[in-house]
């Protein structure tokens, strides 16, 4: 049971959502946008999310699109992970999100909710980081598109009152060779340890990582080291690990040394699977 009360509204347009958010904010309600809502509900039960107003964006048509617009795939923020996997317009995204939570939970979790969530894994963002995708943000000045690399820095950098409407990915990236590997501490269930998504574009391997640090990321330095010519795989992976200047997580799921060990193995798997290394 969620112990506190909140208002609930279901706008049917971006403008209406923004206006409602402004009004609730003005009245001190600390509004939140709600898509699948799984995190708001579970953290709300623990009082780790507190809000006086929930703005459910599932009835906004732009948020529900999942289709091609010329050479661009448009993915609405409220598409469920199950829909993404089953319609399968974007195989790397399908594979990556198919490992999030479980099948029934994915019937509710949405791509936008995963990317904007507080829980730090946010694996759904990895394919978008690899494909130089754009995000469309709903704001009071109207929708605006922005390169994901400019707005996703540790998390989606949204101004107060803004929300994620869509993600847009160029078709040319959708049929490139890819790998998405998730490692858990035990078997195929349980919380993730590290997830790596990789894409080969113009003979270079791109890699994005979740679970190593408290945010998902893509590192140009790591990719440069891995793709360096005329060096053994071991040397390149060692250089790639050294290039990381991040705070590696050290928690009950895995120590920082263990996480780096797992990452090293994952990079080996990626480079043998995609990079042509043996």
């Amino acid at each position: 049971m969620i112990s506190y009360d909140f208002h609930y509204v279901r706008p049917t347009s971006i403008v209406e959502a923004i206006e409602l958010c402004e009004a609730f904010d003005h009245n001190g309600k600390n509004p939140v946008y709600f898509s699948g809502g799984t995190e708001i509900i579970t953290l709300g039960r623990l009082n780790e999310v507190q809000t006086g107003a929930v703005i459910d964006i599932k009835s906004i048509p732009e948020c529900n699109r999942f289709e091609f617009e010329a050479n661009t795939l448009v993915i609405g923020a409220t598409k469920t992970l199950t829909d993404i996997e089953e319609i399968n317009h974007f195989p790397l995204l399908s594979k990556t999100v198919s490992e999030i939570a479980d099948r029934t939970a994915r019937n509710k979790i949405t791509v936008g909710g995963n990317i904007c969530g507080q829980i730090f894994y946010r694996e759904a963002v990895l394919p978008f980081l690899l494909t130089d995708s754009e995000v469309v943000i709903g704001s009071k000045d109207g929708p605006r598109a922005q390169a994901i690399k400019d707005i996703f820095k540790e998390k989606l950098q949204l101004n107060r009152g803004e929300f994620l409407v869509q993600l847009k990915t160029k078709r040319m990236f959708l049929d490139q060779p890819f790998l998405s590997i998730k490692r858990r501490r035990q078997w195929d269930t349980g919380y993730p340890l590290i997830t790596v998504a990789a894409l080969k574009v113009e003979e270079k391997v791109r890699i994005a990582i979740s679970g190593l640090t408290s945010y998902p990321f893509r590192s140009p330095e790591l990719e440069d080291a891995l793709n360096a010519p005329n060096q053994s795989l071991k040397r390149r992976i060692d250089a790639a690990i050294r290039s990381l200047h991040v705070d590696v997580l050290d928690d009950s799921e895995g120590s920082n040394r263990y996480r780096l060990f797992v990452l090293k193995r994952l990079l080996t798997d990626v480079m043998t699977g995609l990079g042509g290394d043996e």
Partner: protein
Amino acid sequence: MANPNSYVITTNLVINGEEREVTFRNADILLDVIRNHLGLTGAKPGCLNGDCGACTVNVDGIAQKSCLMLAIEAIAKEITTIEGINAVIQGTFMDEFAFQCGYCTPGFIMNAHSLIKQRKNPSDAEITKWLESNICRCTSYIEIEKAVKAALRMGPEKEE
């Protein structure tokens, strides 16, 4: 529809084919409304965190963990609980002794019911992937899988 000035709503929910008028808080999860307001106690509270699947119901034919859904989200949708089905899968659960304490059984059945209705011929891997959404503390997994496969063999058209 939701009143933006209120914390409480009185509305009709369609559950097991019946329209029922019910009053609940915007913040109430579907599980609590089904059990405490509508008196249907088949869906079980377990982890209340979306992990165990004991509270699984079908919403518009799709398996949903009712602890992960606000009741207000279910307006204008068709909710089906274990009390609302008379399906082959219930019989095969008994035939295969696919339960021990039975607490997880309604959740497993509602998940499997959705699978059988949506997939005519799922692979073993697909069945496993769906069933991973539910936890059985008594570890009846082998028997549960047998029950699902037995129901599938009898044909999805019989899974009413």
